[in-house]
């Protein structure tokens, strides 16, 4: 018979409805049940996400996904001690569906509500896999919407944003290059697959913000816009000349440039900050070039790499429940029931 608080996490910031239950033990966070419903197939038909469709899909999926997560955990709603929900950043409509469900549950069950930050979730999910975090760590959160380097002294109360992408997120650059190469939406996984068949050294694409002159102002920032433009112009030139575009080599060289920049800048940041643990999370942490290069260079630099298994890379409720569990464990104040959703929620605000 365990008495550690059971935290229900709800994630609806984009096209995945995620619900999970995490038990907040004093010395660990334990995932006891989860369920995810995705509307990505519905969006794929349109070549992109449609906010209205996503909102409706969340609305339809919320009840069933909640029931599946509870079944998976062998728990009932009465067992829930706290609710955590993504308050932002994300799409306003989908966020509102999740927040409304969370508020209704919090009122009905008379338990505290925690509105948490979606971008910190992928960092927090590591606690379910590798145990509670050490005191200081570096977190690289990479997805279709974010590319952010965080110094984490405490995953709830001590997150400092060291840098971010100045233009495109890494996953977004993949999606755009995917479209450029005529691959289906979302382009990321397709470019990844194609890249494995090509030569990463075939074409020299730029590494944004890695030059010595950029280190003073942008040591911790990323830029993928120049890379994206370079790929576009390289492909344009081949097409204008009536030549065939070597798709696999373009994909491989592009993917290599992205992984190289992410890993090189992150490890340099670890060294500069004197941090020896790196957590990589977010949808783009599923990228095979990034995973391989990070493992290789972290080993060489003596940095412990915590990269979650693939199933935690896409949006899920477990990361939100994990962050909620971390908040409960620290006894931070719950959010008010008027909790607003915030499409551009600042990253250093972990709970609202």
């Amino acid at each position, binding site marked *: 018979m365990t008495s550690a608080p059971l935290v229900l996490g709800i994630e609806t910031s984009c096209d995945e409805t995620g619900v999970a239950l995490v038990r907040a033990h004093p010395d660990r966070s334990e995932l006891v049940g989860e369920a995810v419903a995705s509307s990505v197939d519905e969006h794929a038909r349109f*070549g*992109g996400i449609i906010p209205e469709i996503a909102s409706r899909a969340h609305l339809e999926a919320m009840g069933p996904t909640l029931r599946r997560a509870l079944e998976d955990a062998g728990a009932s709603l009465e067992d829930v001690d706290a609710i955590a929900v993504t308050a932002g950043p994300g*799409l306003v409509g989908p966020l509102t569906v999740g927040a409304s469900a969370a508020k209704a549950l919090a009122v009905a069950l008379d338990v505290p509500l925690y509105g948490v930050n979606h971008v910190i979730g992928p960092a927090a999910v590591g606690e379910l896999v590798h145990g509670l975090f050490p005191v200081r760590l570096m977190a690289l959160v990479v997805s279709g919407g974010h590319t952010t380097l965080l110094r984490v002294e405490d995953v709830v109360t001590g997150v400092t944003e060291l840098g971010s992408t100045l233009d495109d997120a890494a996953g977004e650059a993949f999606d*755009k290059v995917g479209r450029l190469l005529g691959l289906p939406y979302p382009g990321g996984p397709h470019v990844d697959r194609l890249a494995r068949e090509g030569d990463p050294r075939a074409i020299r694409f730029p590494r944004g913000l890695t030059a010595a002159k950029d280190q003073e102002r942008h040591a911790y920032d990323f830029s993928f816009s120049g890379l994206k*433009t370079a790929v*576009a112009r390289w492909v344009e030139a081949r097409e204008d000349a009536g030549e065939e575009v070597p798709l696999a080599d373009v994909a491989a060289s592009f993917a290599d440039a992205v992984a190289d920049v992410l890993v090189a800048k992150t490890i340099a940041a670890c060294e500069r900050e004197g941090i020896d643990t790196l957590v990589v999370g977010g949808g783009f942490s599923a990228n095979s070039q990034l995973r391989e290069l990070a493992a290789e260079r972290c080993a060489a630099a003596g940095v412990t790499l915590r990269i979650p298994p693939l199933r935690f890379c896409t949006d899920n409720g477990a990361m939100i429940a994990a962050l909620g569990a971390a908040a409960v464990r620290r006894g931070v104040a719950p959010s008010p029931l008027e909790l607003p959703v915030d499409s551009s929620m600042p990253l250093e605000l972990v709970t609202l």
Partner: protein
Amino acid sequence: MSGAAVEVVLADAEAARDFGRALAGVLRAGDLVLLTGPLGAGKTTLTQGLGEGLGVRGQVASPTFIIARVHPPLGDGPPLVHVDAYRLESLDDLEALDLDASLEESVTVVEWGEGLAEVLAEDRLEITIERPQGEVADPEAADLGPRHVTVRAVGERWAGVELPH
């Protein structure tokens, strides 16, 4: 209904941001700006300057993934609604984006909105950005090179308004 057109050449990204800042000076709540140009033209860069000029919260970055991002004002100016229609098939009504800011109260910038976003407002600024084409010898320089920018003012709202040039 087409009004004045202004053409400028912007030498680099800093010039694009400066132009965005200057443009912010003539914008007010309810205005719509459409940005057109190929991948890598500098639409987001120009919008970054525009956001600075308006004095809004947050790093203005590409909203492609999130489709629309609302930047609340830091002072008493209007919020900036930054939309990327790249992945949208239609944009009959901005309401479909479920934004927590209205077109009337905000400055709305739509990237990739050509042929989609015109229905949003009769009055608008249509900005076209052209970048150099083709391969560059030094790949690090892919984003460099001058941008040819055309600003076309459409509708009554812009009658007699002097655009930055």
